């Protein structure tokens, strides 16, 4: 048993280091200056590491405003997504009506036309709804994400129906069952979805591109894109800015990761 764990641990370390190497290289490169970045033969670690690029990045953009805008969009969208996805996923999993099966296929279909392709019609819809140039335009169209619904649905299918039946016999209505019984059980799934949603919205650039046109509403991703010009890319600033924008999402992941570790559903079934 112990040797199994040791092998397990060793492989884990090997793979995680392998996986993170490109990101590590990215972060390390952000401390290099413009000449060293392109020198050949290559260096892994910077010869004169400095925070210069970070200083430039911070003063280049209105970082505080953009972060506030992005945070606003991300947090609110995540909360709404969690609510919508768990409700819809629960219904799709636990009720047997034909229209639900049809709805499932319909929702799945929404993932098959990527936003790039329906960008102009989506823009028209946003405008007609009066949402143009508002941060809400980056929130509302994104909260119906199918991946969220799918995730919650497959989780709820694994919950035994006996639990629901027992509650119904006790006289609870469906809403009560959902809020008091189902939600507490799916904490780790909600944590996972929360991590995903946070990441999607934080890194989203399509909706902000379509729906925002004033600089005071721009998000971090829009600002980052301005570093890639028609002929030139400001590599040093781009690397530093990318690392900076990665940090909040990483923090959220670390915090929520603990939620995933602890829950075990079987505790609900026994007895």
């Amino acid at each position: 048993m112990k040797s199994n764990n040791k092998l397990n641990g060793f492989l884990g370390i090997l793979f995680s280091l392998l996986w993170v190497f490109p990101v590590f290289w990215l972060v390390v490169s952000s401390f290099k200056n413009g000449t060293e970045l392109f020198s050949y033969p290559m260096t892994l670690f910077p010869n004169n590491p400095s925070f210069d690029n970070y200083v430039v990045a911070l003063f280049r953009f209105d970082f505080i405003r953009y972060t506030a805008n992005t945070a606003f969009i991300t947090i609110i969208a995540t909360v709404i997504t969690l609510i919508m996805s768990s409700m819809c996923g629960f219904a799709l999993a636990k009720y047997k009506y034909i229209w639900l099966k049809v709805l499932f296929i319909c929702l799945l279909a929404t993932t098959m036309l990527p936003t790039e392709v329906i960008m102009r019609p989506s823009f028209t819809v946003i405008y007609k709804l009066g949402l143009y140039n508002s941060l809400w335009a980056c929130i509302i169209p994104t909260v119906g994400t199918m991946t969220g619904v799918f995730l919650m649905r497959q989780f709820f299918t694994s919950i035994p129906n006996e639990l629901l039946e027992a509650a119904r016999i006790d006289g609870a209505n469906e809403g009560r069952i959902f809020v008091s019984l189902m939600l507490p059980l799916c904490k780790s799934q909600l944590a996972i979805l929360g991590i995903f949603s946070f990441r999607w919205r934080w890194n989203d650039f399509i909706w902000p591109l379509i729906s925002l046109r004033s600089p005071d509403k721009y998000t971090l991703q829009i600002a980052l894109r301005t570093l890639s010009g028609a002929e030139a890319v400001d590599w040093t600033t781009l690397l530093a800015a990318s690392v900076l924008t990665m940090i909040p999402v990483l923090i959220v992941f670390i915090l929520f990761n603990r939620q995933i570790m602890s829950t075990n559903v079987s505790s609900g079934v026994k007895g």
Partner: protein
Amino acid sequence: MKKVLALLLCLMVSFSVFANGASESSKKEVKTLEILLSDDTLEGGAMAAIVDKWNSTNDNFKVEINEIAYGDMKTQIMNRASVNELPALVKTTEMDAYADFLLPLDDKSLKQSDFLRDVTRDGKLLATPINSTAVGMLVNKSAFDQAGVSYPTTEEERWTWDEFIEAVNTVVEKTDCEYGIVIDHSAQRISTLLYQFGMQIFDPNDASKIAFDSPQTKEGLEFLLDIYKKDISPASVGLGAENAQSTYKTGKVAVHMSGNWVLNDYSNNITNFEWDPALMPYKTDKATCLGGNYLYAFDGTGCEEEAKEFIEWFYKDENYSLYCSNGNYLPSKIGVDATYTVKGMDIFNMELNATSAQPSFDDSVKNSHPGESYGNALRDAVDKAIAGELDADGVIDYFTNSILENYTNVSLK
């Protein structure tokens, strides 16, 4: 932990609501013009400096910059055009796509004859060329010096393309350079080389005839493809997988075929070897392709008079010269001089003065097909050829077919 999260949540939401509220409540009493642009900060903030100058010396209206990514310009403009919320002013690389929305500038003191590039459509001055860029060459001076090879900086010294190949082969042999030349992944650079072999896209005697299919074009294409086959230039850069500018900065390449826009970057970021602009080779013609941005105003924004006033003020010699100096741009208005902080701009001026008229002619034909575009067809065809999918004749067919498919009223010569 939950409490920490809840606190964090409240903080962020209230902060962002505050941030949003603050921006809405600051009402502007003075009219503010929006100028939509890209790449200004990347190129040294020249427009920002000019806008600051206007704002500090004028009170009747203010100007504000809205800077977005180059790749997003078209999407933004097209979306805003469809809902009639266009910005007052724009600086960007295209004007003909938006021809229907441009504000004619004829009632101000600016005239087409003031400018180096053609901005007149249907007899009306619809835009102004805010700068000119020219394709040219940069050499690795340290390598050339080490190999004892000289490079041309005067018209008499100009290489032929065959002499060029000899020169860079010598440099590669005698130094630790690995490649003779890298060429940007761009139809404009490829075209420049082909023009130097006598290529024509459209017939100078009849703009509706496509003259691309010719022995000169074929010779140029075969020469270009040969450079990749013989590994004088790395195919990965030719295909755009590796970036020419980044590759040149490693110091392992003798020559970079690019344009004057790299001068800022190279001045700031190349410290491990010496570099210098040099005159481009020729086969039958000397040629360079002009590029550059346009500055224009949109109609229907409610700020038309103010926009025209700003544009007129912008092109006053003292202001325009300041703009070109700050951004290290080649002036597009005749008779304006700029003082540059980077060396080598004079080489590009020489190229501009020496070029044949064919590149500009082809450009003007392109401009006369608003709303129609063959995209990057030439570059795509050359990509396929470098990858081995096409030969020179195949490239010619691919490109001419693309033009025929996308343009109306054109035919083969």
